[in-house]
């Protein structure tokens, strides 16, 4: 019975880790993309100024 409970909690851990791990990945990825977009936009703006 003890191993059954262990298996149960192992399976639940897989679910929680999978879901929240992926959510964390999404949030971190979105932050990084937002940062990259911001810096690229600044670069484009700088190039625009120096070009004009």
């Amino acid at each position, binding site marked *: *019975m003890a*191993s*059954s*409970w262990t*298996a*149960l909690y*192992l*399976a*639940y851990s*897989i*679910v929680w880790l*999978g*879901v929240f791990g*992926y*959510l964390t990945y*999404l949030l971190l*990825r*979105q932050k990084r*993309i*937002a940062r*990259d*977009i911001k810096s*690229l*936009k600044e*670069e*484009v703006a700088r*190039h625009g100024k120096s*070009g004009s």
Partner: protein
Amino acid sequence: MNTRRLGLILTAISAVLILVTTYLAIFFAPLPATSVKSAGQILSTIEGSEISVSGFVTNLNITLRAIVDIPNIIILSLADFSDYQRYVQAADAGDTSGTWWTVRPIDVRILSGGLTIDRDPDITSEIHNGSNMSVLGKVVHESIGPNSAIVGYSLDVPRSRDVTIGAPGAFSVMTAPVAQKIFYFHMPSAWVSYVAFFITLVASILYLRSRDFKYDRLAMSSAELGVLFATIAIATGPVWAKQEWGVYWRWDDTKLVTTFIMWLVYIGYLSLRAAMADPGLKARVSAVYGILGFVTMPMSLLSARIAPLLRSSHPEVIASKSGSLSPEAGMTIGVAVIAFTILFAAMLIKRVEIAQDEEELEELKRIVGGEE
């Protein structure tokens, strides 16, 4: 309401519902009764699995005093579950006369335990009605399908004496009823992956018709989430299978293999996208792949339902004639399915949003690269 706020609200709702599901699964949903079929029950007859059973000698054929050697192999007699249901109904009605069991043998090699018998100093022993038997064994040969219940033992003994141990329905063969609670997360994960791959199909068709990249983003995002939830389902299933079947995986089980193929196909879909740089080509090829790859979804979904044709031991509980869920278990799985569906919707909104940002980033990179 903007999509970001909607996504946050849906995530919060689904998180609460998943917590509720966890509580219901552990404390509210009852353990499956061992004499009634439920997810995970009576499937421990698979070759290679270990089985633990016990009972009493209730009938000795030919003679009431048999002299036997302790057998190394016992043959367990099993009965189809459909017969068992009829038997339960007849027992409730008070008339159990007639034949109820379609008896088929499986061979079990004894690992430990056996008959409690009177032994002489020499090799002979005596068994009689009331002798106890408790065996931990390993199934070495299976000649029955799934959904069967052990109704008694026949000992394969020398001198052709036939000994029946136990009575119909007297044995508990569900080796891990607690592990059955994995079902409340395993099944909704699988359900969401099917929904996700269906959305990928629809969005792929819409992309090919309209060439609008918003459908490509939706198809890709949904496929990625489908792979996530299919991975959860594929990872949690073997945890239960090890407890109930004694093995993590069966390559001869149609449900398991078709689900694995579906998972690989959508891994391929994501890999293909990652390997292509041209956005137009990537979207077109992915859409065709997303349509063709969908054929694996109904293969996986339906394989357990047509198990008699395609050999699967995977439990098929919902929407089947023999499936039986208690109201508490039904409520728990209902909440779980709603929770996972809302969670999927929230994640899909977020993933599409990020895909849009990724496209903007790629566009900016092209502009900067062009200027340099």
